[in-house]
């Protein structure tokens, strides 16, 4: 018996293949462009919101671009070292008589889950929303913090 799954994930048709290839080529182009102290840029590959994660000795900091998303339309949950950011971006309905010249902004529901590389203190996550950027300050669990090892002589 053949199951459809045998042929790979749903939607992996020629079109998807082409998208994948053109994306790879664009990524390569970008890699070539990387220079100086500009960090290597990993394109979000079709996810919303785009997220940046950085770490310091005591914290992970997660930033996400969420323009026009209200605090009440956003839901953040932490389970173990996994974080889920979900919500809905609502675009206001405008005057019915309005004629559109450009319509590039997108609205709708979104959800992203990602795992922090180390253990986190889920009770002490600080979330802030300012100018359309969500910032999460995530305290590392004691076990994930770097420790200086004294060397005996």
């Amino acid at each position, binding site marked *: 018996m053949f199951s459809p799954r045998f042929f790979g994930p749903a939607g992996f048709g020629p079109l998807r293949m082409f998208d994948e290839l053109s994306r790879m080529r664009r990524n390569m182009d970008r890699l070539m462009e990387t220079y100086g102290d500009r960090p290597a840029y990993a394109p979000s590959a079709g996810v919303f919101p785009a997220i940046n994660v*950085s*770490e*310091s000795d005591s914290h992970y900091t997660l930033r996400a671009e969420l323009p026009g998303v209200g605090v009440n339309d956003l839901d953040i949950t932490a389970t173990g070292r996994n974080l889920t950011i979900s919500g809905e971006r609502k675009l206001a309905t405008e005057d019915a008589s309005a004629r*559109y010249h450009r319509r590039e902004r997108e609205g709708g529901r979104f959800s992203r889950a990602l795992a922090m590389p180390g253990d986190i203190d889920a009770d002490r996550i600080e979330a802030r929303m300012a*100018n*359309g950027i969500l910032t999460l300050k995530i305290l590392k669990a004691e076990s994930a913090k770097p420790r200086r090892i004294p060397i005996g002589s």
Partner: protein
Amino acid sequence: MTETTSNEMKVQEKKEVAAPAEQTRPGVLFSPDVDIFETDRQITLLADLPGVTPDQLTIDLRDDVLTITGDVPSAAGPEEKALFTEYETGRYYRQFTLSEVIDQARIEAQLKDGVLRLNLPKVAKATPRTITVNAG
């Protein structure tokens, strides 16, 4: 299939653009996503500018060319080490040519949650006047 789930957000990547002129400031230039619509009275422009604060936003209208520029400084502190980077920050830049005459005095701009809302009221059509000709 993603198409079957209703009103799931369609994803767009941040669009990097080439600089219109040589830049004196290092950094990447991005083209913000916009909605532009028009009613009888005004043109409204909505632009996604995440990370731009009101003092970093410049809106310029001259000779029917509207220019929006917004700078986003890097948010990361010096002690932070990037683990992964899906978006970059830099300058948002976009220009539009307006075909309507805009009443410059009544332009309103509001920046909220990283979205700019710009109301550009049209100049009221000149009211027709009859000119009486006096016989001389």
